[in-house]
Each structure stands twice: as structure tokens, then as C-alpha cells.
């Protein structure tokens, strides 16, 4: 639909009625859940963008003491990349009607994401052990805050993932799984992208 053309219509003119009367369905030819996910990704982007701007504002300050990012973060990044690939595999398989692959892709994606979260907690533990506590310096506080918020988004995704995984477990038809798997994959790709931006920011500043 051409949004501009839609918004320039003159609804008070009855000669425009014929076409308008036939209007059926939504603005986008997409399921409501897909539109909702896209809106939600917009909201999440605002949160992360504001934090990145705040981070950029503070990092130029004289008090800023960057902390050494643990090497474990590279392993965690790899886990998240693999998780995203697994979910993409499940998504493609769902489109092609291959139920077994959907199952393996979905389980692997969830398992790798849990491993990512455990890895992030271990990285926190390492840093805390080295004395880099959140209250010590603004750089530390931002590190913990950004990773925590990203982790909470992954955790929220796992709740949605759980619903799809449970449906697979109960032996649902592939047609009933397609949308859930599709949305999980898109969400994970988005969170991978956010993590790559955050990781780059945290590593090089």
C-alpha cells in the first residue's frame, strides 16, 4: 500500500468511495504478530540507542576508566552467532516443511542462547573477581547495565521461544509452528545485531 497516496485521499468526496469501500485487511500484508514484533523492535532500538548516546556522552569524561573486557565475551559472541544461525535454519526448514530440522534448529537455538546467558554471567563474575564493580566507575556501570539489558531481552525471547519449543515437543503440525519460529529467528537476529554493536562499543572504548 502506498502510504503517501493513502494519506492524501479526500474522504469527503463520494466519488472516492467505490475503491475505499473495497478496502480489506490491514495496512501491511503481514500477520498481526509480525507487525507487533517490528513495532517492539523499534521500541527496543530506542532504549539501546539512548543508552549508547548516554555512553558516548560519558566516555569523554576525565573520570572514565575503561575496564578490560574478558576474553570470554568472544566465546559468548560465537554462541549467540551460532544460536542465530540455528534459528535461521529452523526458519528456513519451517518454510520448506521439514519438521525434524525445525525441531533441531529450535532446540539448538534455545540451548545456545541459554549458554550465552550463562557465559555472560560468568564474565560478570570474572570482572567482579578482578575488582571491577559497578559502583567503582561509570564505565563499569555502563558495562553491567548494557549487558544486563541485552541479557534480559534474550531472556524475554526465551519465554516466546519456550512456547514454540513446547508446541514442537507436543507434536504440533508444521503449519502451526511457522509463524512462531519465524518471529523467534527475526528477534534473535536483531539481538545478535544489537550485541555486535554493544560489544564493539565496549571493546574499543
Amino acid at each position: 500500500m502506498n502510504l503517501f497516496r493513502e494519506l492524501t485521499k479526500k474522504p469527503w468526496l463520494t466519488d472516492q468511495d467505490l475503491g475505499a469501500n473495497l478496502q480489506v485487511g490491514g495496512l501491511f500484508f503481514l500477520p498481526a504478530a509480525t507487525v507487533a514484533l517490528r513495532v517492539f523492535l523499534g521500541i527496543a532500538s530506542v532504549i539501546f540507542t539512548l543508552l549508547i548516546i548516554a555512553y558516548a556522552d560519558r566516555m569523554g569524561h576525565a573520570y572514565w576508566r575503561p575496564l578490560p573486557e574478558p576474553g570470554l565475551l568472544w566465546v559468548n559472541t560465537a554462541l549467540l552467532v551460532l544460536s542465530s544461525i540455528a534459528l535461521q535454519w529452523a526458519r528456513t526448514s519451517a518454510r520448506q516443511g521439514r519438521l525434524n530440522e525445525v525441531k533441531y534448529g529450535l532446540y539448538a537455538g534455545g540451548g545456545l542462547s541459554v549458554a550465552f546467558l550463562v557465559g555472560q554471567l560468568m564474565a560478570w563474575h570474572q570482572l567482579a573477581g578482578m575488582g571491577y564493580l559497578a559502583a567503582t566507575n561509570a564505565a563499569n556501570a555502563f558495562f553491567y547495565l548494557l549487558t544486563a539489558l541485552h541479557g534480559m531481552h534474550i531472556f524475554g525471547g526465551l519465554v516466546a521461544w519456550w512456547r514454540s519449543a513446547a508446541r514442537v515437543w507436543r507434536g504440533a503440525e508444521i503449519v502451526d509452528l511457522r509463524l512462531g519460529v519465524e518471529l523467534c529467528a527475526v528477534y534473535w537476529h536483531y539481538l545478535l545485531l544489537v550485541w555486535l554493536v554493544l560489544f564493539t562499543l565496549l571493546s574499543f572504548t
Partner: protein
Amino acid sequence: MAHVAPTSSQDVPPAELADVELYHAKSFITKWVFCQDAKVIAIQYSVTAILIGLVALVLSWVMRLQLGFPDSFSFIDPNDYYQYVTMHGMIMVIYLLTALFLGGFGNYLIPLMVGARDMVFPYLNMLSYWIYLLAVLVLAASFFVPGGASGAGWTLYPPQSILAGTPGYEWGIILMLVSLCLFIIGFTMGGLNYVVTVLQARARGMTLMRLPLTVWGIFTATILALLAFPALLVGCVMTLLDRIIGTSFFMPDMVHMGEQLDYSGGSPLLFQHLFWFFGHPEVYIVALPAFGIVSDVISTHARKSIFGYRMMVWAIVAIGGLSFVVWAHHMYVSGMNPYFGFFFATTTLIIAVPTALKLYNWVLTLWKGNINLTVPMLFCLAFIITFLNGGITGLFLGNVSVDIPLSETKFVVAHFHMVMGVAPIFVVFGAIYHWYPKMSGRMLNEPLGQFHFWVTFLGAYLIYFPMHYLGFVGVPRRYFEIGETSFVPPSAATLNEFITIMVLIVGFAQIVFIFNMVWSLFKGKEAGDNPWRATTLEWQTATTPPGHGNWGETPPVVYRWAYAYSEPDAAEDFTPQNMPPSEVRTSGGGDAKT
């Protein structure tokens, strides 16, 4: 305007779309408590918002008693006063106005006005209300914790808000921040519903440009809220971490009460930017639904189509966009770069253009209309002039050089209340008088409504016009007690007494309003399906109040825009949106069926 005689060939058969699967409650609990029907959720939102709003109203009475008659009430000490100021402001702006316009009217009107059976995600919608209720309870609990509620001022600026010496710094501020986070999470769930329902669940024939302006207002305000609340969320989370685990996001190095604190390197200004990046769009989160509702109410009660519908839609969208680039006009006194102030003064003046356009269009809608001075109409007319008044003083304050001397005075309080308090609450009242018959099946009592209107309207002006004057003579805001000063004339004290008395009288009128709502629920005149002879879909339901699923067997099909009033060819002075062209009796006879 072109008029084409309607023909039966324009009739469209009922929707061919598969009907959406509707949730059906199976027990009393799921039907009336944990209910997923948007109409019930709307009433739950509205009742909760009004109840907590009444608490905020009482707080304002106590504040005014102190200001009007200082040293007379021993039960109000400075700590109490600041706590009341803070809670009054936060409750009114967020927990009453935002919740009522979006959670209340949004939930009730969006599905009905767009011709949907319900919101697209009913379970999420229900969750949204219960999280909102939890947020309200957490906030209200802060009155009862050690140290009481936060007294930091409704803007919650750190460092002051989280340091010893500020009332409620122990627990009150923590509960306030947690409550705000909960509110935002709950609102996001509801907001996703409002946006996706408008985009994806409209009835057949309901194009975007046939949507009533109420829906446009609520829809755009929801998008604003979804994009602006994250800034408040981020600010609240960071302040919470500063307060609880001692991080220094907003806390600079400081000596407090002779003691060097552990905080280091934070930026209080960063909080102000985050707060106002939310705070200014918040003005329009409240104002845009009000704009939409006023447009629909005056069009209906003046029996005339809205003037400049397209411009009204574009103005709503333009105001929504511009509202994100004016936030720092709340921070002129923070010591900003003059060029920065110049930029924000300019954008502030620019936003007046689409707003003025709406005002002209309302006046032109009324021009030569068949104006019925019903209670909803009176409240909406009162909104128009009040928003104009508040908007004009906003132009004063939008200029840096005028704002700086006025910023710390009562002038700001008066401006803010006119534009953000009184004006939107007039629309809330107007909307309740307008849609109460659909929600309850009964009319509100007219004489009580007229009493409520005239006392509230005249009273509000008798409160806030003198307050502007107090600001001009230099009476500062935020003070518990002014005492004797060289620059404030003694007459200011008399004026303060007068304002307090007016506040109490206006407060009494609100009790009459609450009584009217309860009394009319049982004794009010039967409303019928469409007492205002309105065109929009919510008035065309098979039953009043509308049943579960809204439309009975067949969802509506829409044939025209929402403002077909007093059309020359139609026999009635209104043509409902869903009336097939073949049923519209024309003066020429046409092919009318009825």
C-alpha cells in the same frame, strides 16, 4: 465538495474475511476480573485511574490549604508538602491522564471505532491492565513506608532526589522508580495492541482516511508514548542503580552535609535530557487524544463535518514528530549553550503552527453549525479556549529570555496547569459525558452536568488567571511558605487565599460529578443506541452497551468517512459510517429502500 447520488451498486457485501477467533470467558473471574475483553479492560483502567486521580486531587487541596493559609494547619509540615507536590504531579500526569486517555478511552474506543471485534492481542491487553494496577499499588504503598513517599518533585532530578534530606529518599523514591518501570512495561503491552489493532484490524472499507480523528489522536499518541517512555525507563533504571548499588550514572562528585560521598563522575544533566526527552512528548501523549476527541465531539454536537479533515490528520502527525525536538526548552535554566537554546526556542515556536491550524479548524467547524450546548460540547469548547490560553503562555516560556526570569515563578505552574492539566481534563469530562451512554446504556444527569461544567470551568479560570499574575509579581514556586519578602506585595497572600477557596469549590464540583456517574448508572435516563445521532461505528452496535465481540453476527462494512453530518442529499442530518448507500434516503428519491 462533490456529491454523487449514492447507488446500490456501491453497496458491498459483508466482509469476506474469516472472522477472528474471539476469546470467550468461561467463568465469573475470567469474565469480570481477569477479563480479556477490551471494553471491560477499558473500564478497569478508567476506574483505577479515576480513583488514584482522586487521591491526587485531595493532595492538591492539602497543598493549597498550606499555600493559602500558612501556619494554620499543624498536620502539614514541609516534608509532607513536598511529598504531596511530587505525588500529585506524578499521579495526575502519568497514572491518571496517560492511563485514562490511552488505557481507558483507547481500549474502549479503538476496537469499536475501527470496526474490530476486540484488540488483536487480548491476553497481552489484560496483562497490561494488571501491571498498571500493580504500578499504582506500588506507588500508593510509598505513602506507608518508612520516610514516606518521595518529595523530590515530579521531575525526580538527581542528585537531590536520592540523597538524604529529601523526603522519601529511603524507600519512597525506590518505590516511585519501580512503579514507573512497571507502568512503562504495562503500557508497552497495551500500546502494541492499540497500534497493531489500528493498523491491521480495521473493518472492511475503513481506510486510514476514514478513521475518526479520535482514533488518529490515540494512535499517534501511542506511537509517541512507545518511543518516549523508553527514555524515562532508562532514566529510572539508572537512578535506581545509583540509589541502590551506588553507581554514578547521574551522581557527580559531591560533598553532602559536610561529607564527601562515594559517587564520582556522573552527570545530573544527562538525567534531565532523558527525562525531558520523555517529558515533552508526554504533553502530546495527553494532548493528541484530546485533540481527536474534541474534533469528534464538536462535529457531532454542531451537526457539521469537521473542517479540514486531512489537515487535522497531518497536523496530529506533524505535532507528534515535532514533539521529539523541543524537549530542552524545559532546561533553559540548566546553563545550556545559547545556540542550543536558540534551536529549541525555534522548534517550540514551529510546533505552534500545526497546533494553531487545529484550533482554526475547530472554530471553522463550529462556524454556521447547528451548535447544541450539551455538556460534552461545553467541555470541548472550554478545552479549545483553555488550550489556546495555555498555548499562548507557552509561547512566552518557549523563548529563552522570557523563560529565565519566569522559570522559578508561579507563572510556570499556571501555564502548565492550563495547558496540561485543565485543558485535557476538560476533554476527559467531555468524553465521559459523550460516551457514558454507550458504556452504561444510560445518560448522565444533565442539570448536574451543567453544574459540574460551569463550576469547574469558571473555577479553573479563577484559580489559574490570578496565578499567572502571582508569577509576574515574582511569587516563587516550590516554596512551602513564602513568609514576608521585600518583593512580593501583601496582596499576593490575599490572592493565595482566594485561589485556595476556589480550589475547594472546584473540588466539590468533582464530587458532584462522581455522584452523577454512580447515580446515573442506576437512575439515569435510558440512552438508546445512538442518543447523540452520531455517525461513527461505536454508536451503531446491535446492543448498548455493546456485547462481547461488539458486532453480533456480522462485523460492520464502512461506506464513508466519519463526518457525514447535514449532507444536502440525505434525509437525516447524519449518515452512519456503515449505512449502505442504498439505504441513504436522498431528496431526489434515488433507490432508497427504507
